[in-house]
Structure formats: C-alpha cells, structure tokens
C-alpha cells in the first residue's frame, strides 16, 4: 500500500474546499455521494473521468477554506490515491492525515509533473518518480508523530490504541 502508481490530473493554486466539494452537496456525509461531485466546480467532468489509483497534482495552498472533512473524503472516495501539491492549507493537511489520504508536499514535483504523466509515489519515504520523464522528487518527510498516526491507520485507530 506504500507504493502508489497512477496517472495524474493537474489543478492550479489555491484550490479551495468549495471547489473540491461545493456546499450544496454537504447536506449529506455519505462518501459515495460526495465522490460523485469531487472537484465539480474546478472541473465538472472530473468525477466522471477519474479512475481508481490516479493522482492529483496541484499548486500552492491546496484545500484552503473550510474545515469540511468532506473534501479529503470526496477525493479519497473518488479513488484518488494521493495528492501532490506545492503546499497544503493546514486544516486540509490535518484532515488528510487523520483520514488516511496520502498527501505529499513538493514544490518541484508540483511544478514539473505534466497532466497525464504516470507517477509513482513511495509514501513512506516521500519519493515521487515521474515515469514519463524518469525524474524523481523528494517530498518533505512527515515528523515521527504524524508518521505514527499514518502507520496506525489514521487518528481514530490511533486514539483506540491510546484509550486501551
């Protein structure tokens, strides 16, 4: 599960949570429903064309705006295996780690990887390889505490072990 590979879809800077999952769909929290509208206001065709395992590559401040966990949930439920961005908004970053959506911060990869490239990602080491060009990029590694959250399978699993 630590090695991911998939085709990429590109998005720009400051992709906000209203673009990822518009509020008009927030009267439900069902992941399957949310996935149908994933990225709808950024690209209305996205949910129809994304295939399981594919990867989102975006610019700076991805996931800015609301605290809605529905945003990473929609992305994960749409089958996206991982998000690579130049930077992430902080609540989105937290939420992704908490629910187990792999995210990697790499300004270089964010800038260089083209749409439709096949990219492989080693989540444990943060190494990103663009199979189309052969180039590799190194994302900032997670601090040990966050790595332990990720290893536990997200915050809920981590809390479960803590409550025992």
């Amino acid at each position, binding site marked *: 599960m630590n090695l991911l590979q998939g085709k990429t879809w590109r998005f720009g800077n400051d992709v906000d949570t209203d673009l990822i999952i518009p509020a008009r769909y*927030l009267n439900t929290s069902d992941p399957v429903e949310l996935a149908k509208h994933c990225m709808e206001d950024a690209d209305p065709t996205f949910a129809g064309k994304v295939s399981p395992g594919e990867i989102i590559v975006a610019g700076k401040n991805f996931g800015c705006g609301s605290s809605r966990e529905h945003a990473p949930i929609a992305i994960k439920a749409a089958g996206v295996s991982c998000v690579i961005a130049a930077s992430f908004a902080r609540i989105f970053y937290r939420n992704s780690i908490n629910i187990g959506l792999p995210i990697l911060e790499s300004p270089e990869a964010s800038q260089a990887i083209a749409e439709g490239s096949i990219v492989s990602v080693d989540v444990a080491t943060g190494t990103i390889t663009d199979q189309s060009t052969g180039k590799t990029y190194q994302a900032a590694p997670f601090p040990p505490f966050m790595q332990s959250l990720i290893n536990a399978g997200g915050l809920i699993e981590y809390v479960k072990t803590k409550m025992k």
Partner: protein
Amino acid sequence: MGMTITEKILAAHAGKEHVSPGELINAKIDLVLGNDITAPVAIREFEKIGVDQVFDPNKVALIPDHFTPNKDIKSAEQVKILRDFAKKHGIPNYFEVGVMGVEHCLIPEEGLALPGDLIIGADSHTCTYGALGAFSTGIGSTDMAAAMALGEAWFKVPESIKFIYYGKLPRWVGGKDLILYTIGKIGVDGALYQSMEFTGETINDLSLEGRFTMANMAIEAGGKNGIFAVDEKTIEYVKARAKRNYQIYQSDADAKYSQVYEWDVSKLEPQIAFPHLPENTRPLSECGNVSLDQVVIGSCTNGRIEDLREAAMVLKDKKVSHNLRLLVIPGTQKIWQQAMHEGLFDIFVNAGAAVSTPTCGPCLGGHMGILAKGERALATTNRNFVGRMGHPESEVYLAGPAIAAASAIAGRIAGPEEVGVR
C-alpha cells in the same frame, strides 16, 4: 526567551513551562464544537472509537446553524444526529432553532469562550474567539471525534506574525476593512500554519465586534489562529457572560515573531474583495461600476449588533435599489431581539430588506438567498470562492456592513457618501 500569547496558552494546556514554534504537543482543550455539516461525520467517527461517553459533556458544543431551519430532508437528518447525540450524552450546549445562532456569534455570547482558553472547532472560522485572547482554531471532524473522546488534541506550535496598526480609522472604516487590507497585503496563504497577532493603537480603540471580525478571517490568510491581547473591553465583554474562571495571558516583550508588519491606517479606505479570493482586495475608490443583484448583511464575520447598527445608519429613510435583494441576517437570537428593540428592523423593512432568522444560509450557498448563473452579490461574509453563494458562474464581493448597505441602495458597489449619508 519570551513567549507569545499563543505559545503561553499552548504551553499551559500541554502542562509545559515553555514551548517553541515547530514543537508537536498534546494539549487539553476547554471546548470542542461542531455544526450540522461537520458534527455528523465526527459523531460517526466517535462511535468507531468505542467509548461510552464524551470526556466532559460541558466541554462539547453542538450548533446546527448551516442548513437550519432545516432546508430539506437530508439536512433535517443531519441535525437529528446532533440532537440525538446531545441527548444521549447529556450535552447541555446543543442549540435548537429558536435559541440557535451562527456558531461563532453564539459561542462568545454564551460565555463558552473565555480569555486563555484552548478551543477547537470543526469549522474553519473557530479562530474567531481569538478576539477574547483565547487560542482557538479550526480542525476537521475526525479531530473533533478524537477530542470528544480524549479531551485533548495534537498541535504543532505555530510561529507568530505580529501586525501593528496605528492611526485613527476614518469614518465607515472598521475591523472588516483592516482584515481585508491585511489579507490583500499578505495573500490567502500569507500566514499559512502561523498565528496572527493583532496589535497597535488602532486595535486598542477597536470594539470587540471589530476584533471578532478580524480574528474570524485569520483563516482566510491561511492562519492557524488570530489573537488579541486582553484589555478592559475584553473584560467588560466576558464579565457578564463567564460562568467559570479564566486566565489572562500576554505576549512577552522579548517574544519572537517570524515577521512584523506595521501599517498606518489613518487614511485607509473601505476595502472590497473581488471574486474569487479574499486577497483580491481593492479600495472603494478603485472599484469602478460593479452592479449587484443581491446584498447580504450577516454571518459569523459581520452579523453582530454593531454591524446591524452600522447598516441601519446608512439605510435609514432610504430605499433598496429596484430589483436588488437585500437580506439581513442577525447572528443570534439575542442579536435579533436587540436589533428589534432598537427599531433597526423598521429601518430595514422600510428600506425594502428581508430580515431572516439566524442561519449561515447564503454565506456558504446553503439556502435562503442562492445566486443564479451570472448573478453578483456583495456580502459581509468572509469567502468569495467560486460558487460560494450559489451557481459556479455567480460572483461574490466581500465588504463591511456600511459598504453593503450603501451598495444595496445604489444597486452597485458604493460607499455611504455616494448615497448621501455622511
């Protein structure tokens, strides 16, 4: 070495003498809150943990404000999850329609946020309570679930940016203009992961309402929290509301800041954020002719009594422009009642405005004032993202209540002077 107010509050809640930026800590929380969008997810996750009780029913608040009064069957079911959970766990701070308000207006009003507190909320604008000298920040639903079980949460101690404002603000310029100006200067990620500390003589003169407005929008610059020092105004505000003890923290003179901004705001013009980011700010004089279909006065940013008074001052004996909808949404029931007693509703209704019960409603494009394709709104809210108030091809402009009221009269973006108000 000295600490900032944010560092001191985090250290105290983590049981430490000292913390530094970058440090990961576990800290005890004084309050965790959620709304009708985020709490259902949190409750689902909480139930997976397998504990029977929340850590302290008095330190959990559930506020159904986004789609309430329930706009459809799905929303009604979301709210029911909150209501049932509150009943099951004996949570007193569940706020039903009728006593409910927009969460970030309601929590301070109820005395649930106090100086020195550490508060987390599954809503990004939880940063609002920094106006009271508390550390408060938005988190997600899973964090809320974990906090309801443990009574604590993990934090990375943020670096702090200090903002110093000086000079007396011109007429019709307030907290909203200060924060829009700030976001315009530093950008929507200008304070990413950092704490924004607002200081200076202009801030000392600013009302609590103005401070709530500013702290509220710290997240729009990517900030983790926005915070103000506690002064007599803060004490005055919390005195009548606090039902428990609180602690006052102040930044040390030798506290360390990653950046310091200093601005003379004595000549600041009203600020308007153009679509589709809060950083796209322009002074009023550079807005040009922007015609409008709707104006919204309300939200957790500007739905407080002072905001309504300011709007009423402009709208008195005036009429809303033909074919423009003006919606006024007081933030809480108490604010609603106060506005009624002060006769503000007469002014609004005579002008041709609709006055609503408290709700987030149009602020997030939920209900009660959705935009059609191609329509344009000016709102006193905090976000103007694509599709925020309705159709993905509609537009939202952000401003303070005086500009909103004047624009409703003019039918285009305008200041009070332009509609004959001095």
